[in-house]
């Protein structure tokens, strides 16, 4: 014992260097610290202070974490619990009526009482209130009355007759310094929960040769007890009191510095609001306003960040069967998005049993959200706070901000799966896999970096970079050239950080649970049995704020993996349950697809059995469409609709064009969904001068592919020519030639290869095109496919029109296939290869043919 004591006396230097790199302190160090605080309290403390760090690793001005829960006690009229670091104080307020004092007939009473029970610290003994408790009680009372944050006159009901008495009881549950702070925070929070009194903030500063914010019990003791603290009170940026009861003198500079700090910190407390702030994604607002349903209820999905609730998704709840559909739907959403509330499409604030059940299942926040939409489509948001609805204002998060502030983390890994070919076999093994992943036995590796994330058990949460790095910084550091480009045109707005998974294969040396049984093999016979073995591809997403710390990402990824495994399991079980393949012989590998429907603004993940044609899964898709309130006119969740994370060519370049504010009377209609920009010279194929119509057709084709209408590969020039020869439109010599094609040929090809009908519009001159503008607008609104236009020797793709009702002016959004350069979005936009053209873009003398590919309603 003695030897340890002296050896460890030189430890602070080590500890300091460790905490500066922010590694988690090991248990051993923690033990040594406690030992030191007991043996050499003064020296130990001085060692730290002289190295500019505090014993708990904070900087001098660091505030401990504050957690606040309001209205925690139901029997009290108002209550709050606050936890500052370890210091925990409960405050309960009881209201009573009494006659005011004769000398102050118009003033109410506020009686504070602070109790420091033996429970909270070994310093206090049972019995009558200690001196310390009385001092604290008085200080709190003085601050509240002197700071005038409560107008005592307001408490008077009838002067000289009746006034309110506020009995404020504060009980300390855990004492670790700065108890005055904690008491005041909890008192003010309790008061505030009842009426909107204004905030008052206060900070104690423990003083030695330096100023310590928010001291712990140990620090307070080192500085000379609670009385030596300087307490500064601030109220809405105004100083309303400084308290100091003893201890050493303060120099003027120090005092100034302290006051400035206190002012700064008071804002921090003001920020601490009771219920989370609310933001709703613009996508959700739009969907809510457009939704037309007979259902009365829907579920809201959102995520918490920075004490704000952000609603990003919604679904309709059918209550058809006992199964809670939202539970299943949750698995299709990226991790971190959780059920957060209910939306009702009727005007009243009443709530039936079923939606109430849903509200009870909200885990993400204590105060579930309840949104009401009346017939006028007005949206009113409420938080359910202790069984009471509190209306709350909300902020609308614009799509650009959503994409800018949030990023997706995509985890990709393959788990080898071998199990018995029965439902129980699959269930068991999947549960085991989930358990293993949740047990902290995995580490996540961020692709393209040396960053590994570890679970709670390990001493280091993150290796390869600093623990403080947030995700945004890491992404920027991984692709530096992209971040510089970001200032200009962005089209691929979805940012994805790829992650893979490694499984821990070694055991923890120091673990108490270390079982060191040597390897052994047990063989169990069971005949006859069948087993299945497959590589299970886990491909899952999580939505995280860019400011999320890497150390927080671990749990998010575990959740994401578990979600994915559940989804995969359900697909496997569904197949095993089906007739015919019940024994597992015809089991198909589940494949994961991510969809990013334009209307939703967030990903939906689907897992489908491999090689099952899309056509035979229409039922499932229809359910999903209905649940999400999506149109059932066009496919959204077919394989082809899936979001491609890596495309070498440009996708939707027109989205990078800066949008000018629209004049009234102007209608804009443009292509709906994604397409690939095909142009000359791509894929090392020289078609300069003759291939424009081919390229335009490829663009149209890519649109059909992306919209899920087909899974046919995009045809090459030669395949297009072959197709035309096959249908007898062209002679065999056409094959391999450099002859150009026109709108009708495009129409033929689309019909032959895709079964897509097209409308052909003839315009005798370029100026005559103007007459067809309304039809083009109609086309984009109904079908949304790109239009090929051929005139003279040139072919273009029209991907949008702008029509002014009054002036009859029309502008066309043109995608020009004659571009020969590299796929650089900046060049394409700035040189106008993709851009708005006026009607004089068309040759007045040439005649034009337009091919308008039609779509059929299907899903």
């Amino acid at each position, binding site marked *: 014992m003695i030897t340890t004591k002296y050896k460890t006396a030189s430890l602070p230097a080590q500890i300091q260097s460790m905490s500066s790199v922010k590694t988690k302190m090991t248990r051993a160090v923690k033990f040594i610290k406690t030992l030191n605080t007991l043996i050499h309290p003064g020296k130990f403390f001085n060692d730290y202070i002289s190295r500019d760090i505090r014993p708990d690793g904070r900087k001098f001005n660091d505030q401990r974490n504050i957690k606040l829960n309001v209205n925690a006690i139901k029997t009290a009229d108002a209550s709050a619990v606050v936890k500052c670091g370890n210091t925990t104080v409960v405050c309960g307020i009881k209201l009573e009526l009494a006659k005011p004092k004769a000398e102050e007939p118009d003033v109410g009473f506020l009686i504070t009482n602070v109790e420091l029970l033996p429970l909270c610290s070994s310093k206090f003994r049972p019995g009558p209130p200690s001196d310390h408790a009385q001092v604290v009680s008085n200080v709190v009372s003085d601050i509240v009355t002197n700071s005038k944050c409560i107008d005592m006159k307001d408490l008077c009901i009838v002067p000289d007759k009746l006034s309110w008495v506020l009995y404020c009881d504060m009980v300390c549950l855990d004492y670790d310094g700065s108890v005055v702070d904690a008491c005041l925070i909890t008192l003010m929070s309790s008061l505030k929960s009842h009426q909107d009194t204004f905030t008052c903030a206060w900070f104690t500063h423990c003083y030695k040769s330096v100023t310590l914010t928010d001291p712990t019990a140990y620090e307070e003791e080192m500085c000379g007890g609670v009385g030596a603290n300087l307490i500064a009170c601030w109220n809405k940026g105004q100083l309303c009191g400084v308290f100091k009861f003893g201890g050493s003198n303060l120099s003027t500079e120090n005092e100034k510095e302290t006051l400035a700090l206190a002012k700064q910190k008071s804002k921090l407390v003001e920020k601490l609001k009771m219920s989370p702030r609310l933001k709703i994604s613009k996508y959700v607002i739009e969907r809510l306003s457009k939704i037309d349903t007979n259902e009365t209820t829907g579920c809201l999905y959102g995520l918490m960040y920075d004490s704000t609730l952000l609603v990003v998704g919604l679904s309709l709840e059918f209550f058809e069967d006992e199964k809670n559909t939202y539970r299943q739907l949750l698995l299709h959403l990226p991790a971190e998005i959780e059920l957060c509330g209910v939306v009702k499409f009727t005007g009243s604030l009443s709530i039936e049993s079923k939606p109430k059940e849903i509200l009870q299942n909200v885990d993400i926040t204590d105060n579930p959200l309840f949104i009401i939409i009346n017939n006028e489509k007005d949206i009113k948001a409420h938080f359910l706070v202790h069984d009471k609805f509190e209306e709350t204002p909300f902020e609308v998060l614009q799509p650009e901000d959503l994409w800018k502030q949030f990023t997706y983390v995509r985890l990709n890994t393959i*788990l080898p799966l071998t199990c018995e*070919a029965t439902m129980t076999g699959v269930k068991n093994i999947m549960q085991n896999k989930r358990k293993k992943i949740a047990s902290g036995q995995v580490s996540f590796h961020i692709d393209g970096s040396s960053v590994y994330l570890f679970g709670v058990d390990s001493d280091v949460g993150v290796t390869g970079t600093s623990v403080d790095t947030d995700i945004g910084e890491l992404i920027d550091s991984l692709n530096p050239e992209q971040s510089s480009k970001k200032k200009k045109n962005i089209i691929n707005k979805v940012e994805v950080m790829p992650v893979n998974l490694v499984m*821990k*294969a070694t055991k923890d040396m120091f673990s108490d649970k270390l079982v*060191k049984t040597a390897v052994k093999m047990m*063989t169990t016979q069971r005949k006859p*049995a069948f087993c299945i073995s497959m590589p299970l591809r886990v491909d899952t997403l999580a939505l995280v704020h860019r400011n999320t710390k890497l150390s927080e990402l671990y749990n998010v990824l575990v959740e994401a993996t578990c979600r994915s495994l559940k989804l995969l399991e359900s697909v496997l079980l569904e197949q095993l349950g089906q007739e015919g393949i019940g024994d597992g*012989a015809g089991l198909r590998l589940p494949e994961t697809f991510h969809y990013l429907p334009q209307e939703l603004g967030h990903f939906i993940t689907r897992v489908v059995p*491999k090689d099952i044609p899309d056509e035979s899964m229409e039922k499932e898709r229809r359910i999903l469409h209905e649940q999400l309130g999506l149109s059932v006119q066009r496919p959204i969740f077919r394989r082809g609709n899936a979001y491609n994370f890596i495309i070498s060519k440009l996708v939707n370049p027109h989205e990078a064009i800066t949008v000018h504010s629209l004049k009234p009377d102007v209608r804009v209609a443009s292509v709906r969904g994604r397409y690939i920009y095909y142009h000359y010279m791509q894929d090392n194929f020289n078609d300069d001068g003759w291939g424009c119509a081919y390229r335009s057709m490829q663009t149209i084709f890519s649109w059909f592919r992306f919209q899920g209408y087909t899974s046919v590969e995009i045809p090459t020039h030669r395949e297009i020519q072959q197709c035309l020869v096959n249908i007898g439109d062209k002679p065999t010599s056409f094959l391999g030639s450099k002859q150009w094609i026109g709108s009708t040929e495009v129409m033929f090809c689309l019909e032959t290869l895709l079964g897509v009908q097209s409308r052909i519009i003839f315009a005798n001159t370029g100026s005559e095109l103007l007459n067809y503008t309304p039809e083009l607008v109609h086309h984009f609104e109904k079908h949304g496919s790109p239009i090929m236009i051929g005139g003279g020797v040139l072919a273009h793709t029209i991907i949008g029109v702008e029509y002014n009702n009054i002036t009859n002016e029309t502008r066309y959004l043109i995608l020009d296939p004659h571009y020969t350069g590299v796929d650089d979005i900046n060049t394409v936009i700035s040189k106008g290869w993709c851009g708005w053209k006026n009607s004089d873009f068309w040759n007045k003398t040439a005649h034009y043919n337009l091919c308008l590919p039609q779509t059929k309603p299907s899903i």
Partner: protein
Amino acid sequence: MVRTVYSPEYCLQYLEQYASQETFVLGLILGQISNARENVIHLARTPEEKPAESSSEASFTSEKTELEHNLLGVSEAWVADHARHVTRMLPGGIFVQGIFITSDEDIFEDPNYFSKVRAVLNYVYKALGMNQFMYGNYTNLNEKLILHMSTSTKVLTCKSIEVGIGKNSAIKPVDWKFLPKHQQWQRLDCYYEFDEVYPVIVKKSGISVKQQFQQILESAHKTISSSVMFIDGELKDGSEALEQLVKKKRPKSSAKCAQDAPKSMHVSLFVPFENSLPETVEYLECDGSIHFSGVVSSSVFMYPKATVSEAILAVKQDIIRSLASRFTMHCDALIDDNLLPEEKVCFNEPPRRVLVPVGSLYFCDYLFPGEAPAEALLSVKELLDLQITESEVICDVETPADTSEFDALDRDTSSEELLATPQEASQFMYITGICFAMLVLFVSIIIHYYDAIVHFISNLVSRS
């Protein structure tokens, strides 16, 4: 540059001791090569061939008795066998680096003797290379050492020849140096855990335990070689020296601590999942399942100036080598090699690892279930020519498999089927019981109110 080998001083005493007895002695040189330095750790004399090894060879050995103390009389197979057995006892990163000989002839000059030496080395090389999972040969350098001490002059010569390339390899001189001080070693520890379930797939020819072990070994080799290794929880640069890692951690103030024996580093391995399987669901008929579980404890000793990547390689080798050693030993001792005997549940428990001290570090040995640590003393004496006491054997790096666990599992599997039926049966009993009780109640009511009912019915009848 001449290859330089560093050896602890007790090796010299060891050689001198044999040389002074003026006998011919042959043994193995055990050591570690790192880019920084080559170290010899131990010299182990090959035990003398036992004449009564097998009755059929009795005549052959009896002929040889007088040749026994001569290099030419040494059986290559015997030395190779020794090398194979010794390799099992070596932690990863340590290899049989060559042979030593004490004799009065100059083995380098006499072509007869030298070709014998070459033959022995080549044979050893071949024997060690047989099982790739044993990592018998150091792969980066095929030059084996020959250390010779003349019994007459006590002159020490060391040379090396390349093995495995035929007869005309050149002899190279080697600089053999003795270190007066104890060599420091950096220890790296880990427990590698297995917990896998495989299906038993029986081919027409049946399946043996050996084949199954081989399959396990292959898959373990694949996963371990692809794994990422962290030292003390952090990913290290492969080119960094181990020594550097220790220094970084230790602040300058506590220079005193540097004198202490270097602390062990904890290694953790993380396995990435790679797609080795075809992208389809395989559907197989199987005859049960195999649960392969437990730990392989690994303690590797590295020269402190060795790099992290060398250490990583050594740890990975150690785990595979240990696994392979156990399996070989287990299979050698096996009577029934059939994986699926009559019993429903079958248990294969390979020997477990124990650590035995050799100089300042530890080699290992394997104990079969039921064997006492004293057994290790025997093999250490015989194979390493070392005298140790029982208390020096570290037995608790691994614990023998708990048979109660096995029993529980056995019960589990058998009860699984049993469970389903009693539950259904009890439900049936329950319902019948209730029905019967109801019947009794009904009958008793009728009997009790018989008069009233008869009266009531007769009333009804008379009324109509």
